[in-house]
């Protein structure tokens, strides 16, 4: 198993990475510095697990080279758990990426990072409800201070693939069937792109 750290540029992903691994990596604000991705190891229930800091991406529909690399890395590591780091004050934008990853059949943990900033901006998020709708673990974090990281690490093992139909059902209260056959569904469509 591997863990992929994914998210938009500038959501503090690299600080996140540093916290989880303790390794020395660079964190930058301009898009693209992490095109050379960083790898590290983190302790997970007594095991050393590989953690990859994937270049920042807004979606899996690449518009620049960094995003191309991100998509490739996701496709090359089908057996991984994805920790999707969102900017808590821009949840909607972040959910777009998170849903794309979930649709492709990956187990996802959502980290609502920069939680402190969101609070300052008077944005309130009902974490439990969000967790219920998405069906994946959702953890508020503040990478700079390290808040929420213990909980995040403990939830990684809980992550499991979720069908997008389930999410649509719980979000709208409507029963949904899929036309793309069974299982994670998105796989064939995802790889062909």
């Amino acid at each position, binding site marked *: 198993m591997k863990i992929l750290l994914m998210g938009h540029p500038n959501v503090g992903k690299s600080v996140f990475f540093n916290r989880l691994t303790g390794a020395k990596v660079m964190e*930058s604000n*301009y898009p693209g510095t992490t095109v050379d991705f960083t790898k590290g190891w983190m302790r997970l229930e007594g095991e050393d697990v590989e953690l990859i800091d994937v270049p920042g991406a807004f979606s899996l529909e690449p518009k620049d080279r960094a995003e191309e690399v991100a998509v490739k890395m996701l496709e090359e590591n089908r057996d991984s758990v994805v920790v999707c780091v969102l900017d808590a004050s821009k949840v909607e934008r972040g*959910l*777009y990426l998170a849903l794309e990853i979930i649709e492709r059949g990956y187990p996802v943990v959502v980290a609502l990072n920069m939680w402190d900033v969101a609070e300052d901006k008077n944005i309130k998020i009902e974490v439990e409800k969000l967790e219920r709708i998405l069906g994946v673990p959702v953890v508020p974090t503040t990478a700079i201070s390290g808040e929420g990281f213990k909980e995040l690490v403990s939830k990684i093992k809980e992550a499991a693939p979720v069908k997008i139909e389930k999410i649509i059902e719980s979000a709208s209260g409507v029963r949904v069937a899929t036309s793309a056959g069974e299982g994670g569904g998105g796989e064939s469509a995802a790889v062909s792109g």
Partner: protein
Amino acid sequence: MQVKEEVVKVPLSVDERWDLIEKISKQTVEFGARKHTLKDAIAELTVKPLTGIPVAIAVIYGFWAFFCEFAGTLFTDGFMVRLFDEHWLPWLQSVFPGKETWLYFIFVGDPAADNCFEAFGMLTSGLFVIFGVVLWAVLAFYLIFAILEDVGYLPRLAVLVDTVLHKIGLHGYAIVPTFLSLGCNVPGVTATRPLETRKQRFMMMTLLAIFVPCGAQIGIMQDLVPEMMGWIFLTLAIGYLGFGFVLNKIVPGKSPEIIMDVPPYQMPTLKNIMSKLWIRTSGFLLVAVPFVLLGCLIVGLMYLTGAMDWLAAVFGPLLTVWFGVPSETVAPLIAGFLRKDLAVGMLGGLMEQGIMTTFQVFTSVILLCIYFPCLATFALMIKEENWKEILGSLASLVAMVFVYGGLIHLVGIMLGVA
């Protein structure tokens, strides 16, 4: 739960996905009242042309002023020059055995030298160039670069310059490799990777290799010819834009337009800045120290074996007739293959001997910038480009040196200063 059934295709379409997100966020997110903060106002001011361009100029000027004060005045002139010229050099000259031997010549250099620019030895000029001058310049540069980077200023600068850079087929983002190259061309070349097309990358690497002097070179130029810096940068900038314009016309390929997130400003953290500073500066020393010392060694050996005189005799006519510089500049030009800072330092030695006019110094400095990237940069370019692109870069380089170098000489003649 309703009984109605909907059919979805996976993956969802853009609209379906957004519909779902809106449903989710309506139930889970509540946006409280929010004021337009000072940070928002600054964020907008720095990206608007009317206010952004003056801010950009102020930022770059502040950058330059700090660079000169910190690296030039405080460390180099205030401390290092004295340390090297008054203590290190005389001490080494007095304890190193055998003034007439070739070992002495290689390590200490000219026994009559009274400063480290003129001595040319590995332990005198070599160490002085790195630790006396260049290290402080590079450190100052990376410190400010890291701050600008972490604050989130660079994407705004990219938006501002995209107007100009897009006209020569580059992306506004090309300002990042360009800027970074002003520290060292090696990470600059690496930073071209996010550029979208091969055309843009090829153009960027070629322009970097030719027209962007590195921090090491700038630091030592600032120490030697501070009064010329404005003209040097102007000449290089004209070359960068002019030659970029030409390359854009002749290199096939696409130049896609900018689609870029402009992130909010952030408070930089000391830890991050320090860690970057350490990684980049140590990376610089790792490349610079061996190459500078090797450069001193090779140049010393070439003097000893007479190869340098031979080269000066062969290339002398070309240098004097076409470029209008004395044949002695052959030595710095050779050293420049390895390290530009060392080469400029050697030029300083020639200046102290009084064999060059001001304009010749100017021309030589520009020639040193453009005639070849340093070996480390070139090695990286070989790794990053395919053989066709390498040949293209080299051809551009040769053409550029002759055209631009000759042009500068011509302008000098017309102005009556050459």
